[in-house]
């Protein structure tokens, strides 16, 4: 399941959907949250812009890439857009597999790929009310190298 939405999501609902298929032995979930601090700056809010016609397609493509590499029984990606508050959930990636190795690798791969390929952009507001676009982190590019992409 792939979703881009403004609403929050529920961990238990997503987890329950992932674990239910026959043969499932391992479920790995990742959740990204709005940190209260980023690169040393205190944050008060976050806005997520996206490219609506492309985002769900980009996420679906990433999940397809993961399915070519690992044995996946079930996968979910949910990404929120719009205005978010501190500690809000931003993104959920969950993968169900027969064995844990596939679930861990596929979940991390999807996140690494999403971070550099899916058209979302963060704008932060700091504690004195200034807004600015978040810079891409070089570490997100280097994270891709473990999957032999870039």
């Amino acid at each position, binding site marked *: 399941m792939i979703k881009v939405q403004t609403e929050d999501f529920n961990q238990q609902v997503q987890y329950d959907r992932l674990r239910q298929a026959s043969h499932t032995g391992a479920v790995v979930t990742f959740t*990204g949250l709005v940190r209260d601090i980023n690169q040393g700056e205190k944050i008060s809010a976050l806005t*997520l*812009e*996206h*490219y609506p*016609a*492309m985002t769900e*397609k*980009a996420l679906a*493509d990433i999940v397809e890439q993961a399915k070519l590499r690992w044995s996946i029984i079930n996968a979910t990606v949910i*990404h929120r857009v719009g205005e978010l508050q501190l500690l809000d959930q*931003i*993104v959920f990636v969950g993968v169900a597999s027969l064995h844990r190795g596939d679930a861990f690798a596929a979940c991390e791969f999807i*996140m690494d790929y*999403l*971070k*550099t*390929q*899916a*058209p*979302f*952009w*963060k*704008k932060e507001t700091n504690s004195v009310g200034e807004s600015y*676009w*978040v*810079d*891409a*982190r070089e570490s997100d590019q280097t994270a891709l190298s473990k999957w032999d992409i870039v």
Partner: protein
Amino acid sequence: MIKVLFFAQLRDQLGVSELSVSSDENPNVQVLLNNLKNKDEQWEKLLSRATLMVAVNQTISNKTATLSSGDEVAFFPPVTGG
């Protein structure tokens, strides 16, 4: 015609989110970029960045991609979701 979109800080800096260009004059992404850069110095600078990303018909692409009428081309800075 080809629909051209700009996102995030690139859109803010250019002051434009969307425009249409002729498909005859823009046979591929590189030519389209060159034509856009000719607008003025600000466009030249912003669209020359090595980190500029491009998507053609909602798929990440590159400058060699050919274009035809009805295509949608998006330019944007490095993505920062997740």
